[in-house]
């Protein structure tokens, strides 16, 4: 019972920490915390992601007759990557936060001495890692099922990072901004309904009524699909940079919402 070493903080009555070393140490430890905390749950999430990635490709493929135009297949198979990453980002964070609120551990986790942005970054890393498996599986199944080849460019990396980042931020922000998880779920369901049903992610925007196509041009969903197509099937995209700009702008907006949501004190 004796001889417990006294931490320097208490012994020296030290002040606060700051700077890049603190951020890096915080990121590492929070990432470890998140991964260890999801140890039982994360494999299930990855498995579901892989299965849904495969399922989307095979299931959506049933919409088409036997002889499908290559363009349609490319729209479908590139769009599915976005749907997978988008749904994971939108749903995973709010689910975990809802669980924390139900178990009354939310306040404790918010009281941890980690910069809010670093905490969000650690969460984004977890979501990204969970999403990559599903994305890889659905790409592979797309190739096997439809006998197509993608023109994979290095921009697959920023495209994946940005799509996952923006989606994760939207889910993360809503989870923290809305006090009642039930309301968060309703909002997210509504967004998902619009994004998957009425945004040109798996098909060209010309299929939509003109007003809906115009509306979508200002929203991030179509542009997420465009930047993914820019990385996998660039022949389908005319101006990928403007899509990057629009998605980055939306990401910045959601960064602001997230910063407000986690930084505000009631």
């Amino acid at each position, binding site marked *: *019972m004796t*001889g*417990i*070493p*006294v*931490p*320097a*903080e*208490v*012994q020296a*009555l030290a*002040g*606060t*920490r700051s700077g890049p070393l*603190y951020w890096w*140490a*915080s990121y*590492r*430890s*929070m990432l*470890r*915390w998140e991964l*260890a*905390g*999801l*140890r*039982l*749950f994360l494999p299930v999430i990855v498995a579901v992601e892989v299965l849904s990635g495969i399922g989307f490709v095979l299931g959506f493929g049933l919409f088409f007759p036997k002889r499908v135009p290559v363009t349609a297949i490319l729209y479908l198979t590139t769009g599915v990557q976005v749907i997978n990453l988008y749904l994971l980002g939108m749903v995973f964070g709010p689910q975990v936060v809802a669980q*924390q609120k139900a*178990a*009354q*551990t939310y*306040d*404790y*986790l*918010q*009281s*941890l*001495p*980690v*910069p809010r942005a670093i905490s969000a970054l650690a969460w984004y890393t977890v979501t990204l890692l969970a999403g990559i498996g599903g994305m890889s599986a659905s790409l592979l199944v797309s190739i096997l099922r439809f006998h197509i080849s993608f023109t994979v460019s290095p921009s697959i990396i920023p495209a994946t990072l940005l799509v996952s980042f923006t989606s994760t931020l939207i889910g993360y922000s809503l989870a923290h901004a809305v006090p009642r998880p039930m309301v968060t779920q309703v909002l997210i369901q509504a967004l998902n309904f619009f994004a998957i049903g009425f945004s040109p992610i798996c098909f060209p925007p010309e299929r939509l009524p003109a007003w809906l196509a115009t509306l979508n041009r200002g929203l991030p969903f179509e542009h997420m699909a465009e930047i993914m197509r820019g990385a996998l099937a660039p022949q389908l995209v005319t101006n990928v940079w403007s899509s990057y700009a629009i998605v980055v702008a939306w990401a910045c907006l959601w960064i602001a919402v997230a910063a407000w949501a986690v930084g505000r*004190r*009631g």
Partner: protein
Amino acid sequence: MALQIKDLKKVYGKGVAANDGITMHIDAGEVYGLLGPNGAGKSTLVKQVIGLLKPTSGTITLGPYDLVKHPAHARQLCSYLPQAQMPIDSLRAREAIELTGMIRGGDGPAVRQRADHLIEALDLGEWRDVVGMRLSGGVRRLVGFAMIAVWPGQVVILDEPTNDVDPLRRRLLWDQVRRLADEGAAVALVTHNVLEAEKAVDRLAVADAGHLLAEGTPSSLKAHYRGRLRLQLMMRPGLSVAEPPEFIASSVRAGHNLVMVIEERDAARAIGWAQDLVDAGTAEEYALGATTLEDVYIKLAGHAPADSLTEGS
């Protein structure tokens, strides 16, 4: 560094003042008890200290740090053990303690060493590598405490730390709480358990309806009761005392217990009266003893704390 709270007021949206002009301080090296019934404003006060709520007015400082202005500093300088269990379902006990120590800024070897000592000191060795979801409530609570104590802030806030913990390990836990204070932390103990708090704290405050009703050392708060005794009757279910005798200074009913305060000179009469009630079958048993902090609490807060009457009386 001392935690200083001055004229703290927190009014929620509907105009309810959860804290209404609270002024208090906790010195480094001190264990300070914050007692009060549900709705007293304890949680609101704690959340303001740790930077999760913004006061409507008033100040909270820790040495040179303004914790209201800089909530990020508050989170770095304060460690908080919530009343709910820690989120460690998937984490092994030792892993949870170490990881929290690192999140709090400890470096690996020192955190590991300290985690090992805490596991030993709290007698948690057999659960060292057991995941949280397989731990009993009491063991999980102790692991939660170790997660706080492994690399504590300058202020350590413990909300009902002994909930579900067995009596033997409670003693070990209180030893470690004292050790935290000895190491220089200002320890705030938030509890309903008055009898435990009486033994553990250096000073305490009783809060109700957003105010601090009284503050001082346990003995100074009990000074009013010198020369008085507590008589506790355990009534048969459904029965009550129709008319207490005139020598009963005050009484309060909590469940089947009737807790009364009497003057020492009336002890013999009180015993006779209580024995008559037992003989008549109105009461099952009685106990006469020194007044405790609980009697002070009952007087101040107007009712008995939910979980303490059955202990130590």
